[in-house]
């Protein structure tokens, strides 16, 4: 079972991806399921449009697509109402992007959304990157403040903060990294080999449509791993986050 842990569908600034195109790509590459977040405008502002789009895509995918809900934390109470609505429509996780949504991971705005996620047993995907965006280490601190929530370190600090990914994962046991952009032969192998981290703390994601999906998958299939480790990276890790039986 191969599960793509993070994709965005809709129209972004320089990219676009429809659910149909995504499903075609998944068929071509042998990817069974994918977690889909909505496009950039929907993450930043048009939360309802985005949640409707991803939950509708999930509902009509025969179980192949699973929806991330989004809500800009600046919306306060409205954000929680929006997450409630998305949950009713079948969303299974929360996706957060501090850059697009304009907040600091440690400013407290996200706390009510994290409490919501904890109550629903939703994992929380956080897009990481360069300063002043969310770096891996502040995400590890946030994870330390919310030990009951399981977090995904989206993009694992690509690229110059890959060096922070290991310390962040060691510091926060409720944090997993994803594989997109990261070469196995410089970055991922060291994380998987680390006795305090390991392959079951790494989640395959293509980060489509920002990437070439085939290359993202090939990089993980080319990576010399044991069968058990490969199963974890390609699906087991994210299945465990979601409580899915695979």
């Amino acid at each position, binding site marked *: 079972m191969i599960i793509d842990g993070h994709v965005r569908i809709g129209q972004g600034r*320089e990219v676009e991806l429809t659910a149909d195109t995504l499903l075609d790509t998944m068929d071509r590459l042998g990817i069974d399921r994918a977690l889909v977040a909505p496009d950039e405008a929907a993450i930043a502002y048009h939360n309802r449009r985005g949640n409707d789009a991803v939950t509708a895509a999930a509902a009509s995918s025969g179980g192949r697509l699973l929806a991330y809900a989004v809500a800009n934390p600046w919306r306060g109470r409205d954000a929680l109402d929006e997450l409630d609505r998305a949950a009713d429509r079948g969303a299974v996780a929360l996706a957060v992007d501090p850059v697009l949504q304009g907040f600091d991971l440690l400013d407290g705005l996200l706390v009510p959304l994290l409490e919501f996620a904890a109550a629903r047993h939703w994992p929380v995907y956080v897009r990481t990157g*360069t300063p002043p965006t969310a770096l891996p280490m502040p995400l590890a601190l946030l994870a330390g403040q919310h030990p009951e929530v399981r977090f995904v370190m989206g993009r694992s600090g690509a*690229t110059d903060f890959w060096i922070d990914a290991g310390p962040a994962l060691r510091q926060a046991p409720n944090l997993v990294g994803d594989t997109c*952009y990261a*070469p196995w*032969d*410089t970055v991922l192998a060291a994380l998987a080999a680390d006795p305090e981290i390991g392959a079951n703390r790494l989640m395959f994601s293509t980060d489509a449509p920002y990437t*070439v999906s*085939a290359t993202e998958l090939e990089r993980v299939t080319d990576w010399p791993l044991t069968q058990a480790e490969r199963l974890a990276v390609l699906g087991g890790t994210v299945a465990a986050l979601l409580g899915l039986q695979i």
Partner: protein
Amino acid sequence: MIDFHTHTPAWRSASWLAGAAFDADEFISFMDDSGVDRAVVLSHDGLFDPSSQANDELAAFVARHPQRMIGFGSVSPRRPDAVVETERMMSVLGLRGIKLHPWLQGFSLHEAALDPICETVQAAGGIVVSHDGTPPYSTPAQIAALARRHPELPVVLGHGGLHDCWREALAAVAQTPNLYLCICGTPPYAARYILEHAPQHRVLFGTDAGLSDKPSQDYAAARVREIAGWGITADQRQAMLVDNPQRLLGGR
């Protein structure tokens, strides 16, 4: 094609991204397997500890295949011997340019110490490549400011702004005629957008080969293969991989 961003092995000083040991012949095998005719080979030890010894070792590495590998050295810009060493690498050692890694080497592009170094590189007909895409001290606009202080000197953004500064890289290149952009570690969607909107003759490509745990440089080979999935035109590909780097390297 020309790979404008590769590294020697780290022989001494790297404690991050140290990668596998490989010799010049093994590196040529990687190039052959990936269809790379010539490679710009940057310092690796020199990124972490810019020393004359690092430049000597880099020069010896590229000298094994001088038709295929073009060496770019490194200096620590505030050291009193920085200009002398720059002159030596460009003349005695036959290197063709200099690689700056401002955040790793700990300086700002705005520091005056860089000016005589840039003048020396320019006088020798050389090129400056800088790491970019990483705040605080390796952002494209900072590097563009250095390029504007030396308008006759070709300056290359070594990573096209990476994930979060690529729009800034594109804007900086558009406003700075002697600034070039090397797509290297830049995400595919950004690469596609840059190729569509940048001055077409100033976009280059690099793999960052040399950092892999395997001498075969697997991630670098994958980066070359990945270009086929970017969704770019044959003309853009030809310009980026062949014509632009050839023209820029010219007699260098």
